[in-house]
């Protein structure tokens, strides 16, 4: 590893830690500033101000905000993300529980998107000006214009209400958790919803960056040297076109871990996205902080990894 690279990575890690700190402070501050709190949710309909005050005290919400933050941060550094205000379960166990369904969904969508988008994008770029190109760009343009929740609902309408071939929601039928076939059938619509939109955006990127790369000098040189079309494309252009693709995959990582909130809501999918949304409405601060910390960390790490990966893909990139 080049010495410049090592110090670069170290610097980035330092910045990353600083950013996590900043993110957590901002979020914490926002939540404490908001009116109302979790006690209202816990008590429910028979609200009484006395009970509310007691609960706030028990949850430590009557201490100064700075102290609360320090307590939370200190515990988080030791790996203890606290307990959910609502259920009392440890936040880490809640997250771990929900991580499975979310990753199942988003990884499936990502794979689907890549598998369809990259070849199609390449095809569209290479067969520029033909019908493939037009179809490709039309599909990708349409895809990024869909609101994900509406796409999901339309798919439910078509496949579940009209055609009755697929189940409308949920992880699996009750009592059938072990049944792989049933679980697979439940995964199809949400994965498709998420995947179609991602596929569209990947395709656009692949296509335009490949076109860009094909135009570069070194490609023309390679062609002039008499190398065959396929070799030119696959060895030189594609490698460089992959950089933006890696970028865009990296950019979709928050979704991968954070859960596709809207898709999960439409399909009642028990993932991290819905956990976070529920926690926000229920003022379950430890869960909100925990989920956001997790996602922010993943994103920061992913960014670092992709940046480092660049220098292996394109030797021209160097680091100060």
């Amino acid at each position, binding site marked *: 590893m080049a010495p410049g690279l090592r110090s670069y990575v170290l610097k980035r890690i330092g910045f990353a830690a600083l950013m996590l700190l900043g993110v957590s402070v901002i979020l914490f501050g926002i939540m404490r500033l*908001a*009116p*109302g*709190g*979790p*006690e*209202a*949710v*816990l*008590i*429910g*309909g*028979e*609200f*009484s*101000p*006395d*009970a509310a005050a*007691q*609960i706030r005290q*028990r949850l430590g919400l009557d201490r100064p905000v700075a102290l609360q933050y320090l307590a939370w941060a200190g515990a988080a550094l030791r790996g203890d993300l606290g307990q959910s205000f*609502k*259920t*009392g*379960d440890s936040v880490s166990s*809640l997250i771990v529980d929900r991580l499975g369904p979310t990753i199942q969904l988003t990884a499936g969508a990502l794979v689907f998107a890549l598998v369809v988008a990259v070849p199609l994008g390449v095809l569209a770029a290479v067969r520029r000006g033909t019908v493939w190109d037009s179809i490709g760009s039309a599909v990708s343009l349409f895809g990024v214009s869909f609101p994900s929740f509406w796409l999901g609902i339309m798919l439910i309408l078509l496949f*579940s209400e009209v055609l009755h071939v697929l*189940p*409308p*929601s*949920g992880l699996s*039928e*009750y009592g059938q958790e072990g049944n792989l076939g049933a679980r697979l059938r439940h995964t199809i619509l949400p994965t498709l919803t998420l995947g179609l939109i991602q596929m569209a955006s990947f395709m656009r990127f692949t296509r335009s960056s490949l076109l860009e790369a094909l135009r570069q000098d070194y490609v023309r040189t390679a062609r002039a040297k008499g190398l065959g079309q396929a070799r030119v494309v696959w060895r030189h252009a594609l490698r460089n076109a992959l950089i933006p693709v890696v970028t865009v995959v990296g950019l979709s990582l928050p979704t991968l871990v954070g859960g596709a909130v809207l898709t999960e*809501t439409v399909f*009642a999918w*028990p993932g991290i996205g819905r956990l976070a949304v*529920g926690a926000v*409405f*229920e*003022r379950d601060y430890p869960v909100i902080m925990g989920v956001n910390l997790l996602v922010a960390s993943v994103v920061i790490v992913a960014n670092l990894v992709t940046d480092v990966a660049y220098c292996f893909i394109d030797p021209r990139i160097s680091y100060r």
Partner: protein
Amino acid sequence: MRTILLAVFVVVLASSGAGESLAAGKDMVIGMSGDATSLNPVIATDSMSYIAEWPLFDSLLELDASLNVRPLLAESWEVSRDGLTYTFKLKKGVRWHDGKPFTARDVAFTFYSVLNPKVTTPHRAYFDALAGFPELTAKENPKRPEELAVKPIEVVDDSTIRFRLRYPSGSFLAVLVNPRAGIIPEHLLKGVDLNTAEFNRKPVGTGPFKFVEWRRGERIVMEANDQYHAGRPALNRLIFRIIPDAVVLLQELRAGGVDFIENPPLTEVARLKQTPGLKVLVADNTSYSYFGWRQDIAPFDDLRVRRALNHAIDVPTIVKEVLQGYAVVANGQFPPGSWAYDPSVKPYAYDANRARALLAESGWKPGPDGVLAKDGKRFSFSVRHDQANQTVKDTAVIVQEYLKRIGVEARLEALDWPTFVKKLFASEFEAIVVNWTNHHDPDPFAYTIWHSSQWKGRNFAHYKNPKVDELLEQARHAAVVSERKKHYAEFSRILMEDAPYTFLYFPQQVYVTRQAYEGFVPVPTFAGVYQSLKAVRWTGR
């Protein structure tokens, strides 16, 4: 050879016998729209917890279909002549789910816990009539039960318990009913901090069903209690599935994922009735919706304005068209199932012209933009409501429309529950649309909502009428039902005259379940149907 045959024969016989008894019962999957917070009747106050607690815990008494009390854990009781002493004889031979015997000490422990100021529970207020209540529940230096001269709760012997009141109260018996008065075991919880006990997630009760597991956010599973004092329930297991999305809940019912749901979207009920294999159960309920406002700010402090607002809203049409008839037009605080309900009190008839006339009388003239105005101020106010409650939101939208037609501008402000509740109890609002769950006895809610001493509590609208105060106190301290009924009738009349709110309607309980399940008794109180789960059986049709 013959021994082997005999052995096989015996085995086959034995296993078929076992098979038959397993098939005789059946599981039932119940859909819940949210998760419970804790399974401890002393602590829990949200509706999901109430539902889940009902099969697990018994109370001293239970309700019948006319909302009268009848024995459950208490076999019989005597009331002293002055109405201040209640002596209950408890059923013998009752056991907790862990096998230990149930005694009067558990009852004493339960209610002393409710009175203990260290325990966070709003149920405390229901036991206001108990002797020593103010001293036991004082914020500063609360007394302990041992320090009282007159003990409110006394264990006479293992199966006899005595309660002493400080004033005769006709609602005392009604308060000893599930879901707010389930009995908890002393031997498991003595000395434990009830607020955070592990017990709250792994409950042990004396109810018809035993706790099996609780996967948070997913399901609560219970199985039949073979040792239940009233006989083993016919069902094998109860599985409460938590599905927060109403649309998904319905889909699951249709697809067979759940067997029982409550409060389906009302527009679907007609279709559900016609679906083969499903049936719809309807019962009156104690929860009610109203459109209310602060009494002590303009323009609501003017009686004519309040009456006008009442005349402006066509409640019967709302009930018929939006609620599909599954509601009863409200004429005040008390639901039709309650003995305090007085059918002679009539709500204000829908009459937009009368509304306009009344407003004109009090000086409101149409302004340049069509909205009424007086002294340069437009008749415009904000209506706050809970954004998560679809029925309330829909009601608010409709109310706004009716008001628009008479020139009143209502600005809707949907707030999330924590914010809404905070503003409500701080009286930071002009108008509200709310749906509350009443108690089946008239006293608890009537008093806390309308008595002028409760301005810091549920009387956040700041209503004050000395005559009403007097009537409520008299009703509270009367022991005889007929006497209370008289006071409440007068109270209802005055309330309607004062028109502090527009009482809208009492939505009914609507449940959808499979034809094959029989035995439901929809008791007309909140979640009353769950009381009959112990009697439900699967007929296999």
